[in-house]
């Protein structure tokens, strides 16, 4: 049996008889589980993937684990004097060092495996929705990232243990070197110069783990970890060898050892610098690229034609560059796989690509943005600060590549409605501009004037009518909703009710299954006392589903209940299906009704109505004043009503992390995974230690 293997087995066996090792393992599991639960909570509703999130939750606890598991391996040998027996054995120092390193590393790997298994198990139990698109294999990149980091941490722990005679000093030195100093420096730097965060991204150790876990493998990083781990082992080996050098006779050997170590450190630094200089970032197709995009996005990419050039206009050193390039490459690969639109991606660094950058600047493009071009003409742009996710990009691609369809939003007038040309706080100019950006025309219609609703009408909006609609006007709307001229094309209506004046439109809504009632809200959150903060979105409707984790604000809203017409009237396609969209304090503050089914092949389209209990919801003042999702909710409602369901469907942002856990479930997850299970592990391991000691 090789000395490396013998030493490896002894290191494991020795750790199994130590209470500190049991405590370290249990503490690691507890820390990783609590961090994971905390990060899961913080990332709820954000564009974060589960595997990288788990990886960066486990990574910060690894240095402490390695420090505790590795602190004894040499320090204890030196303290007890066993070092003499080891050094008198016919074994090279490096074999001892490698054996001990492998023992410590193996124990950290086992802990990582246990943490992974328990995390998956607890997620499956408490938040099964999170695991729907994630397989066990998806975690392998994350495990690789952690294994790579733990190799370096274990090597450093072994080196520190060789340097210090006292195990506690060794553990403190390791933890300081691996965790406290780099993280402390980083956070101090970011506190001193917060503007550096967008440039440098996240804490490098976390960012590296995150990148690899998401399939973005930097060869420079991998080589750097390997070189540094080997260097740490080399240092440990030379430190042990130098124990033979007390006295004058060892001076020469000691000097040559120190020279060798210094040369080794210089070589390691040069190797790491070279590795990063020749860095190649591999975008590995791991983690299931198919699951990255929703079926509807793939459908849009397949249906779209032509070529779209996407230019990423930001510095390559920017912390957002790598995740952005990862996303864009995935989008290009997806488009290629769908054989539809061809996407070409260019990267323009404003500090390096001066010619291309000056062209973009002349075109009025801001730095840190994505530019969509077709035939050399800029057709859209997205500021990275506003988000560049799948939905936004695909929406732009759809707009510039699909055949042009005239699509207008008709705003009713003559009843005291808010106006799209009013730029004041009570106007609708803000939302009208957003609709125009999304490709809609904004028109007004006076139903009393006898004007027919034109064929290009995507939907009719009644925005806060204060005066009653006449019977003729209501009949015209009824006729529009029932279907134009026998074409079986149901109308679309968005109603924003004024709290004080229902404008007679409520009778029409009641006929279609939505009955406005005074809102009796209890236990709702409020900002000013009269408004209502709503974060309870119906998860089963395309309008509201994407808003999980976000909030909208309504001011003194009207509530809705299903009327007798809803659900009961009619059968099959004639059935009016009532769906609540927003709920607060037991009341529904926005609702939708749909009748009929989408049959694109037969030119049949269903009737759709969305009612929102507050016209202020969409006014300029409210959109400007509140950091809320009101704007997106209106836009989603318009897209749903105009038939662009694709852009509102839940799941068009698969990276949104929605656990579906309530506060109780979160607390249970923390207690079970961060307290009960680690305690059980500690008891089992401690029982094993006690049994070995008492046999």
């Amino acid at each position, binding site marked *: 049996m090789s000395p490396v293997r013998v030493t490896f087995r002894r290191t494991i066996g020795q750790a199994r008889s130590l209470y500190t090792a049991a405590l370290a393992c249990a503490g690691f599991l507890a820390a990783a589980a609590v961090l994971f639960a905390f990060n899961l909570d913080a990332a709820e509703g954000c564009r974060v993937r589960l595997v990288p999130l788990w990886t960066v939750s486990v990574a910060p606890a690894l240095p402490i684990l390695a420090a505790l598991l590795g602190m004894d391996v040499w320090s204890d040998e030196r303290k007890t*004097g066993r070092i003499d027996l080891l050094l008198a054995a016919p074994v090279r120092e490096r074999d001892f060092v490698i054996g001990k390193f492998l023992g410590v590393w193996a124990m950290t790997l086992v802990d990582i495996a246990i943490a992974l298994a328990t995390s998956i198990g607890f997620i499956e139990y408490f938040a099964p929705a999170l695991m729907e698109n994630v397989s066990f294999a998806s975690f392998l990149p994350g495990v690789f990232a952690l294994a790579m980091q733990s190799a370096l941490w274990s090597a450093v722990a072994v080196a520190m243990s060789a340097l210090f005679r006292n195990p506690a000093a060794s553990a403190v030195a390791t933890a300081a070197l691996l965790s406290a100093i780099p993280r402390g420096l980083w956070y101090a730097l970011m506190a001193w110069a917060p503007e550096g965060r967008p440039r440098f991204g996240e804490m490098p150790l976390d960012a590296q783990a995150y990148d690899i876990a998401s399939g973005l493998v930097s060869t420079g990083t991998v080589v750097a970890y390997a070189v540094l781990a080997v260097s740490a082992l080399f240092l440990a080996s030379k430190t042990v060898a130098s124990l033979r050098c007390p006295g004058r006779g060892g001076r020469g050997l000691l000097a040559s050892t120190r020279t060798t170590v210094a040369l080794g450190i210089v070589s390691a630094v040069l190797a790491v610098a070279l590795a990063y200089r020749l860095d190649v970032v591999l975008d590995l197709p791991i983690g299931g690229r198919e699951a990255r995009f929703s079926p509807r996005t793939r459908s849009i990419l397949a249906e779209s034609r032509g070529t779209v050039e996407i230019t990423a206009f930001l510095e390559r050193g920017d912390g957002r560059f790598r995740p952005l390039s990862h996303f864009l490459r995935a989008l290009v690969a997806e488009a290629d796989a769908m054989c539809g639109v061809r996407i070409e991606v260019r990267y323009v660094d404003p500090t390096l690509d001066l010619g291309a950058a000056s062209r973009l600047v002349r075109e009025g493009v801001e730095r840190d943005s994505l530019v969509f071009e077709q035939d050399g003409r800029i057709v859209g742009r997205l500021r990275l600060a506003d988000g560049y996710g799948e939905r936004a990009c695909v929406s732009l691609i759809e707009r510039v590549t699909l055949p042009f369809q005239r699509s207008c939003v008709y705003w009713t007038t003559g009843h005291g409605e808010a106006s799209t040309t009013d730029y004041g706080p009570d106007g609708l100019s803000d939302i009208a501009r957003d609709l125009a950006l999304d490709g809609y025309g904004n028109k007004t219609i006076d139903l009393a004037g006898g004007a027919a609703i034109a064929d290009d009408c995507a939907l009719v909006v009644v925005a806060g009518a204060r005066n009653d609609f006449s019977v003729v006007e209501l009949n015209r709307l009824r006729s529009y909703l029932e279907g134009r001229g026998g074409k079986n094309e149901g109308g679309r209506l968005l109603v924003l009710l004024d709290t004080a004046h229902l404008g007679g439109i409520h009778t029409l809504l009641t006929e279609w299954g939505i009955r406005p009632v005074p809102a009796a809200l209890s236990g709702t959150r409020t900002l000013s006392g009269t408004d209502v903060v709503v974060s309870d979105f119906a998860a089963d409707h395309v309008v509201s589903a994407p808003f999980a984790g976000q909030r909208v604000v309504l001011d003194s809203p009207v509530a809705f209940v299903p009327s007798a017409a809803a659900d009961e009237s009619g059968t099959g396609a004639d059935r009016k299906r009532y769906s609540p969209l927003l709920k607060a304090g037991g009341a529904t503050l926005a609702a939708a009704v749909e009748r009929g089914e989408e049959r694109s092949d037969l030119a049949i389209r269903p009737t759709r109505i969305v009612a929102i209990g507050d016209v202020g919801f969409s006014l300029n003042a409210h959109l400007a004043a509140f950091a809320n999702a009101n704007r997106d909710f209106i836009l989603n409602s318009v897209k749903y009503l105009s038939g662009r369901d694709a852009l509102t469907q839940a799941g068009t942002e698969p990276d949104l992390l929605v656990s579906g856990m309530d506060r109780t479930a979160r607390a249970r997850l923390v207690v079970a995974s961060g307290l009960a299970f680690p305690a059980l592990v500690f008891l089992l391991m401690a029982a094993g230690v006690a049994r070995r000691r008492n046999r």
Partner: protein
Amino acid sequence: MYEVRNIAFSYSDRSVLKDVSFVVSPGETVSLVGDNGAGKTTLIKILATLMTPESGTIRVDGQDALAHPIRYRSQLGYMQENPALYEDMTVKGYLRYRAQLKGEPDKRIRRRVGEAIEICKLADTRDRPIRHLSFGQKKRVALADAMLLRPRVVLLDDVLAGLDCGMREAAAEIISNVAAFSSVIVTGHEITDLVKWSTRILVLRGGVISASIPSAGLQHGEFVAKVSAALRGGAK
């Protein structure tokens, strides 16, 4: 033949060994005696390659030991003054581990361990954890480790220290058995015990071997008297 020639060693401000030379033949048991601080443990550590001498050579059958330390250590058995063992292991497990570490093939380990246990009279304690053993039993385990693979040279540092009378006699018997296949070098202060089974006594004094006193032809009392006189700086 185990030859030590002109070994010198000094700490930064103090010379411990100036010129130590001696030869030990196979089957010989040599005891190294001297006052406290004379350099006995230092010399043993140098012989065990735990310290680097300023000058001098160590040869085993003519081969330079310091030039080929791994090969030399595979022919070496070493025992510290205070046995430092893995307390969580059983006696058998520990000896097995040490045999594996010394590179013994797996198929021969069982026999080697059994032999060491038998020679060192550890049969009753073979399956007990080391932490439950007495000091004397631990010394015997350390002794078993030192002679585990029948090494060419066995270095025993202060082997009798801390042992009671019965234990000393047992240790003497074990060392006599070990000497059947090894050159044994023992350090210690217990002259009356050492002279019973040593074939030669080396007196370390002033950084040199001041006297080499063979036991052949000497009565026990005479041998003790000669060694004591050498320690005081008398007879050569």
